[in-house]
Each structure stands twice: as C-alpha cells, then as structure tokens.
C-alpha cells in the first residue's frame, strides 16, 4: 500500500539532497572540529559554512549568534533556564502563553518549582495571544517573555513583533519558540526583534537531533551544557558535524523560493480544509483561518475520539496526528485546544493533518476520499452520536 505522510508537524523526511551533503561527514571527513590537524580543520570549515546558512535563513546579523543544539527542546530549555539563571537576581517573573509546546511549558513549570513565578497568558478562540495581555502581565521583576511564533497543534501564528516591541520598551529579554515556523514561513530575527529564537532541523527536512538557538549579541544568558569550549564556550560537546551540515543544507534549501513553496502548500492546505468542511458535518476548524502555518490543518470532529480516527486512517495508509490524550498515554486532552476554549470532549476528537513540500494534490484527494467514511464508521459506533 502506498502510504501518505501528513504528520509533518511531528517530523519531516530528510531531504535526499541533505543526506547526500551529510554523507562524507560520517566516514571521510570525520575529524573533531576542535582538533588541530587537517581532519579537524575540514570539519571546522563544514561547521562554519553550515552556521552561515542557518544565520542566513533567519537573517541573523552574525553567524556567531547561532548556537547549534540537539533540537528544539534543548534550545527552549537553554534559552529559558539560561536567562532565568542569569537574571534571577534581577527578578523571578516569566511571561509565557498557555499554548506553548511542552518544551517551554514544562521548563517553566520546572522553574516554578525552583522559586520562579510564571504567568501563563490566555489565548482567544483562534489561539492568538493578545499583546495587550502581555503588557498587562509585565511586572517590576519580569525578566523574560517567551511566546511561540507558531503553534504546533493548530498552526496559529502569533504577533511576535508587537510583543517584542513591548518587551523592548520594558527592557525585558524575549525568546520565541520558532520550531514550527522556521523553514515554513519567512523568519527574520530582526523583524521579529527577538533576543532568542529556537529552531529544530527535523521540522524542515534535516535529520532529527539537531537544532539551533539564536542568541542575539549582548543577550545575557547562562550556558546550559558545561564542558569543553565548543560553540565559543556556549555549548560544550563534540559537535554533531554531520547533523550540523545537514541542518545547514536544509536551511539553504528551505530559503530557496520560500514564498513560492509556502504558496503551494497553503493552496493544498486550503483545498484540504475546504474539502473536509464540505464532506463532514459537526466539525470545527481549530486555529486561525488565515494567520496559520501553510501546512497546518486541525479539526475537531464531534462524537468520536482522536486515536481511533488515527488508527483507521493509518490502516488506510494515511499518517496523521491528534490532540487526543489517548495517543500519548497522558490524562488530559490537548492543553492547546482546552486553552482555546474547547471542551475536553470535543478536544479528544481532534485530528491534525500537517503538510510539507512532499505532499501532492493526490494526497489531498485521497484524504478527502477516506476521511468521511472513517468518521461515519466511528460515529456509528459512538454512544454519544445522535443522542442529543
């Protein structure tokens, strides 16, 4: 069976060109970039080039502002804990939103345990943070604002430039988790005017396990991994050279004709959204209709539960994701959907289909063909369907 992958918000396939670029860095150019000799120099050069490419993709002024990490989670942990530790004598208050990724939320909760005070801002029904709320939440002792650029579940894109203006007026460090945005939409650290920005390669066709933290020059932050003097002393550990080369190449490819690719994916997305709305009743599109990632489709489908939808789709060869707790073995329905005002019952029936450049018109047609039947099969089995 030909399978269709529509879970690109979870992770993407590595671009074959990226893999080609990486290959020599395993068995041939295998030196340690910190090593003095020619093997080391070759690896060093490769890392430098990759750093330039990543800096380019997010329009950083200086490649030195890019620190490679093991992924989005480490970038988020590093940014938030690093600023908190560094500035804790100045204050212990952090502002974030209630729909952040767990890498941000659980880090904030950890800091609460350590005596920090965190404000979790609400969002509206589209998942948008109101900059006015940010302003109101600021206190004398606020040291950090961390709000994601684009949400991983519903794709809503936040008004970060407006929020960073408020941060700047109040002289507060601002971080944004741009893991879902980088590579999908144009991201410019100066337009966003953020001090710190997290990105993760595997969301845009580089391999998993490599990411970066953008640290604007002059930003006060404590280091996270202690050890050797790699990454100008900001992240110890022997560099993941092949991964870094892959991230660089993926960044370069992502930057090429970005707007065009974005338009194409947006068009597929809209066809999928419109088609589903047409075919299936009693459903709700989650997230903002237009301020959303080009590849994100997220619906709540009433009376049925997400995991069983995924299973039926999987059996039909379609890979998707859900905000249902049942897919992750956790207790609660998606904190994002709940924060947007959905009831737990409805949240449990959510389905995310996320597209990448590899998805085609035919993929969309297939989903539009399969999904309605899946939904009606499950609804026929549901004790809460047709009951009210």
């Amino acid at each position, binding site marked *: 069976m030909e399978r269709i992958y529509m879970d690109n918000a979870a992770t993407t396939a590595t671009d074959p060109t990226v893999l080609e670029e990486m290959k020599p860095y395993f068995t041939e150019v295998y030196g340690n970039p910190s090593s003095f000799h020619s093997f080391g120099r070759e690896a060093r050069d490769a890392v430098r080039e990759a750093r330039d490419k990543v800096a380019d993709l997010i329009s950083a002024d200086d490649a030195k502002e890019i620190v490679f990490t093991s992924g989005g989670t480490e970038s988020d942990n590093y940014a938030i804990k690093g600023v908190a530790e560094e500035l804790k004598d100045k204050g212990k208050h952090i502002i974030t939103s209630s729909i952040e990724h767990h890498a941000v939320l659980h880090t904030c909760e950890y800091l609460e345990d350590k005596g920090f005070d965190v404000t979790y801002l609400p969002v509206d029904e589209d998942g948008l943070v109101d900059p006015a709320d940010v302003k109101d939440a600021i206190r004398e002792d606020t040291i950090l604002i961390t709000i994601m650029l684009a949400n991983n579940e519903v794709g809503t894109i936040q008004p970060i430039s407006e929020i960073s203006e408020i941060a700047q007026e109040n002289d507060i460090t601002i971080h944004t988790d741009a893991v879902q945005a980088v590579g999908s939409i144009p991201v410019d650290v100066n337009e966003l005017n953020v001090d710190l920005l997290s990105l993760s390669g595997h969301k845009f066709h580089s391999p998993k396990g490599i990411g970066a933290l953008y640290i604007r020059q002059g930003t006060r932050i404590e280091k996270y991994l202690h050890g050797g003097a790699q990454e100008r002393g900001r992240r110890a550990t022997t560099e993941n050279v092949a991964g870094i080369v892959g991230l660089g190449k993926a960044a370069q490819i992502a930057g090429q004709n970005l707007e065009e690719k974005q338009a194409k994916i947006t068009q597929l997305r809209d066809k999928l959204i419109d088609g589903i709305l047409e075919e299936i009743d009693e459903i709700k599109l989650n997230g903002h209709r237009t301020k959303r990632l080009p590849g994100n489709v997220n619906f709540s489908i009433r*009376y*049925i*539960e*997400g*995991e*069983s939808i995924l*299973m039926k789709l999987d*059996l039909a060869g379609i890979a998707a994701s859900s905000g*249902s*707790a*049942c*897919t*992750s*073995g*956790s*207790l*609660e*329905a998606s904190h994002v959907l709940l924060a947007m005002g959905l*009831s*737990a*019952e409805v949240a*449990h029936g959510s389905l995310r289909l996320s597209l990448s450049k590899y998805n085609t018109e035919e993929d969309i047609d297939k989903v539009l063909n399969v999904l309605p039947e899946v939904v009606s099969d499950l609804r*026929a*089995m*549901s*004790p*809460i*369907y047709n009951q009210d």
Partner: protein
Amino acid sequence: MMDYSDKVMDHFENPRNVGEIEDADGVGQVGNPSCGDIMKMYIKVDDDNKISDVKFKTFGCGAAIATSSITTELVKGKTLDEAKELSNQAVAEALGGLPDVKMHCSNLAADALRKAINNYLGIETEEEDDFHCHHQHG
C-alpha cells in the same frame, strides 16, 4: 506509544456486536467523554440466567473499542455469575495483552458489563467520581 497486538487490531477493525439492543434487559454505561472514553453495554438475559445477546457502543481509543468488542464475545452465552467474574486481566489477556498506558481501557469494558448486569438485577451502582479521569498514567 501504542503498539497493539494483532488481536486488538482485529477487534478494532472488525468489532463484534456493535450496536444497541432496543429491548435490552440491562444497560450499563461507564466513562466520561471529557476523559476520552465512554462505553455502553446492552444485554439480553435468557431464562437460564445466561447472556443470550450483548451489544456495545463505544466512544474511545482503539483499545476501548477492541476491549468492548472482545468483552461481548467473551460473555455471550455465559451465565450472569460467570460474566460478572470477568476480570480486567482476562479481557486484556484475551486480546494478547495491552500496552501499559492502555490498561485502563480493559477496566472500562468489564465495568460497563457489570453495570449492565447490575441494571438487570436491579442493583444500584455507586456513581464514580467522574470529575477526575481515572486513567492510569503511562
């Protein structure tokens, strides 16, 4: 996290005894939609105190559907006493095991069945505290 056995997959893909029994002798429902699962069991009881027919409707995950399905198979034709003895463990085992995080689902099916039997027997069952989801954590 879910890696289901072939048996679970079979019962999920081809659930047995789905539906309602219009003139059921007993009906039992457990779960809470805000927790992500609800099961409703319908039974017919014959003169020998045996379950002559059983059907279910389930809102829930794959395991919830599969446990419902196999529970109906396991108890069809059994006496009420036998059926009441059906343990969560037995349901899970009949499915070739369930992932740890899904063990709560097998609880639900047996519970729903017991509720249906009690309903038939005229026994009031205590309402569980539905404000907290009773899932196990993975």
